[in-house]
């Protein structure tokens, strides 16, 4: 009879949880979301309210904070936040604009 190996010794192909399975997906972005704090409802009222962007963000890169923060390292730039924002407070600005600024 073959001896049953302990679980630790069985080789499995499993992934470890962590960000960035697809790399730094922020590099996919063509348009960058920028929050206009004068229009953003929680920022303007300094109150926990709205957060529609946080709710709909497919990648969960927007925080439910005042003001909402966007993790640009992983934001894919889909623009759902800008399309759904009831106050039209998120603008989608071309990435090339930021490259020249950073340089």
């Amino acid at each position, binding site marked *: 009879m073959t001896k049953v190996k302990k679980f630790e010794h069985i080789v499995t192909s499993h992934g470890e949880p962590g960000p960035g*399975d697809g790399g730094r997906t922020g590099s996919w972005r063509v348009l960058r979301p920028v929050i206009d704090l004068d229009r953003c409802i929680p920022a303007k009222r300094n109150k926990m309210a709205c957060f529609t962007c946080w709710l709909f963000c497919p*990648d969960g890169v927007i925080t439910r904070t005042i003001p909402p923060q966007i993790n640009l390292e992983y934001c894919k730039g*889909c*623009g759902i936040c800008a399309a759904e924002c009831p106050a039209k407070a998120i603008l989608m600005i071309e990435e090339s604009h930021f490259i020249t600024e950073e340089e």
Partner: protein
Amino acid sequence: MNPKTDILSLPEEELVHPGSRACSGCGLSIVYRIALKALGKDSILVVPPSCLTVLQGLYPIASTKLPSLNVTFASTAAAATGVLAALKVLKREHTTVAAWAGDGGTADIGIQALSGACERGEDFIFICYDNEAYMNTGVQRSGTTPQGALTTTTPFSGKLQVSKDVPAIMAAHGVEYIATASASYPLDLFDKVSKAKGFQGVKYLHVHTPCPSGWGFEPQDTVKIGRLAVETGLYDLYEIEHAKRKLTGPSKRLLKKERLPITEYFKTQSRFKGLSKSQMAKIQKQVDEKWEAYANS
């Protein structure tokens, strides 16, 4: 009944890491993120080949924080049964098992295992995210692709056949809880997944999931298009609880409200550009008849 969840009472903790391989604007990403919040940390997922396998992480990084088992295409519900049996031996019956498949893994390839599990009364949640074609292999038609939609295997005149009504097939099995949801109504989805956890046997959720690359629309319109499908009356949100069907949320409101014409939905996607005016009129008539039946029931 539990009070409805709102944005501020939705759990803040994310169970999905950012930077997954899902396309920009993926409807499934929204569904996955929200439903995982409802399932909670004490859950195990069983996933066949699908866009979700890609989203959850290939190797060696996984973007999901929950334990997830990748199984063969036809065996989702059978594998979930096995996980349940193992949990029983380990005395971990508090753990929720969620089988999560695409429309192909549910309506076509996975249906025999699912049907068997329903008949045996296995205690897991089955979530079908319906993006209406085999998306991650390159948009081939599936059993739930709507009539007239262009796919890579129906490239000229669109799919000829009518799509399968999977929730009705599940209802015929007599399972306790069936619900339809949409990526565009995440709070409604959250409530339904939370509610499903309270029932015995297989719980089935069918989630309409817009796909920008497969359906042919811009990524920012994902939520808008899912909402249009509901507001035109093409896709209805309902629950079937102990064989009693009732419309929920936005679909219930549609009973008293004017529905948008279905052309509003069709014109937003390139997959419907092959539909003729007469075909659209025919579909509109079917939708009208369906809603008339709802109003009279």
